[in-house]
């Protein structure tokens, strides 16, 4: 499947299945749009006729030969990957990543919180070390030969359970050698409890830290509120700045925010983050049902698309000034990204990745927590529902019909089961609004690569 799009005079052909991306002039771009595989050696008469008003025969035939040579080389109009692995059952696949909801309690009351202000509707609780320990044992047992294991401390607000975090890290590290595992710890925090000790600890032990901030003070404070209803910006930003300033630049961090209907002009929030000195950024559309006044709805799409375009401009502008920054959703590795098998299985929720609650309940991922029908098991009674886990393991974009027809599937990975479930009540039915945004972001990411290549070429001429 070939996806064509143009942005600011750059015409792009994405050959979905091979991963090839080409830049075309107008003639080749238009011609590609009237062709479909298999391509014959000579330009089909029908295609030539369709374009003859706009281009000379010579131009059309020449462009055709170039398109044809890409086709022959397996870089255009290639058919979908159909390896046997896609049909292989992943039954009993190793679990390699844990989301530990160490705290089902939070010291903020954010209005869009999917965790229902921290407790996931299950009551405020902190995970005790005994449960965390069982979770580590569980992942060691279920990870088979996989060496790299990730543990994310999440919540609620995980720093409300800092003691459990520390003891869990020590415990897991103590088992690395014996079991030939390499643990990577990450944490997602709202920043409120960051003090010198915790900052130093996070910078030492966590390979990635995600700091939640929505950008401009008024935007942030409108939705991210303390228990008494005041905004949290002033309390958290100095602490986050300090953490980032002290962090080893070889270790990851992200300042991550959410945008809602309140801030379709979210480039201003990105600028605010940049002004704070943060350069690894992520800002995401809120996922809420359309009845919620903060939700992003169909009517907002064109405005949000425009803003993603502005963000591309901002990125390029800043790069010219030597002020590079990363925007998580525009990061795409066209050359050495993940293998095809990873791409077609996507996030791994429910089989490679699970979330654990303070009660020891195991869920397919953090976003499923609280949906009782998806409980996979419990660490305290040792249960684990392999058939439910296998249901998740069987999901890939071959089993999601809408994804199969989507050009972006190799970049997207087939979307978010949790969003599908909460929006469409169906794990396999993509959440269409999320898809529209995802496709736009992938286009932006590819466009940025193209633009940089073209700029390099003009610079060197």
């Amino acid at each position, binding site marked *: 499947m070939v996806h064509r799009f143009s942005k600011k005079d750059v015409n*792009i*052909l994405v*050959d979905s299945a*091979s*991963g*090839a*991306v*080409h*830049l075309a*002039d107008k003639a*080749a771009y238009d011609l590609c749009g009237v062709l479909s595989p298999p391509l014959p050696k000579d330009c089909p008469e029908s295609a030539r006729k369709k374009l003859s008003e706009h281009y000379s025969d010579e131009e059309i035939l*020449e462009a055709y030969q*170039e398109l044809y040579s*890409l086709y022959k*080389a*397996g*870089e255009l109009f290639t058919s979908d*990957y159909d390896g046997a692995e896609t049909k292989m059952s992943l039954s009993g696949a190793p679990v*390699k*990543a844990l*989301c530990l909801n160490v705290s089902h309690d939070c010291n903020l009351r954010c209005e869009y919180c*999917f965790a229902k202000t921290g407790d996931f509707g299950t009551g405020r609780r902190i995970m005790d070390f005994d449960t965390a320990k069982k979770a580590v044992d569980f992942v060691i047992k279920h990870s088979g030969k996989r*060496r*790299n294991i990730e543990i994310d401390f*999440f919540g609620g607000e995980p720093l409300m359970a800092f003691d459990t975090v520390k003891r869990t890290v020590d415990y897991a590290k103590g088992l690395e050698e014996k079991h030939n595992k390499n643990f990577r710890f990450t944490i*997602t925090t709202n920043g409120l409890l960051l003090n010198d000790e915790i900052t130093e600890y996070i910078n030492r032990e966590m390979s*990635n830290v*995600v700091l939640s901030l929505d950008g401009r003070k008024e935007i942030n404070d409108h939705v991210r509120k303390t228990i008494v209803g005041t905004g949290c910006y002033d309390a958290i930003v100095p602490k986050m700045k300090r953490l980032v300033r002290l962090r080893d630049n070889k270790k*990851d961090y*992200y300042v*991550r925010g959410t945008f809602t209907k309140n801030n379709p002009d979210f480039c201003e929030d990105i600028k605010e983050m940049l002004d704070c000195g943060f350069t690894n950024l*992520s800002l*995401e559309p809120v996922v809420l049902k359309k009845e919620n006044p903060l939700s992003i709805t169909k009517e907002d799409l064109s405005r949000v698309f425009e803003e993603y375009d502005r963000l591309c401009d901002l990125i390029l502008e800043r790069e010219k000034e030597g002020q590079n920054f990363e925007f*998580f959703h525009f*990061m795409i*590795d066209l*050359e*050495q*990204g*993940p*293998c*095809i098998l*990873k*791409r077609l299985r*996507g*996030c*791994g*929720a429910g089989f*490679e*990745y699970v979330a654990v609650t303070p009660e020891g309940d195991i869920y397919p991922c953090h976003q499923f927590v609280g949906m009782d029908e998806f409980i996979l098991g419990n660490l305290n009674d040792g249960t684990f529902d392999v058939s439910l886990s296998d249901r998740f393991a069987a999901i890939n974009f071959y089993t999601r019909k809408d994804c199969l027809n989507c050009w972006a599937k*190799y*970049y*997207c*990975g087939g979307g*978010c089961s949790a*969003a599908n479930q909460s929006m469409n009540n169906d794990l396999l039915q993509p959440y269409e609004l999320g898809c529209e945004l*995802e496709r736009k*972001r*992938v286009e932006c990411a590819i466009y940025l690569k193209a633009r940089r*290549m073209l700029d390099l070429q003009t610079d060197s001429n």
Partner: protein
Amino acid sequence: MKHLKTLSGATLKASAEKGGCGECQTSCQSACKTSCTVANQKCENKK
């Protein structure tokens, strides 16, 4: 070529041969917790 420039070649098909080791990061874990892009993940398989 005059009409076309290749930004990146056919990298995906080749990845099927060496791929599938499963050592890479889980996508949702890394920076967002609410999303799906996989193409921004790093491959851990250096062979």
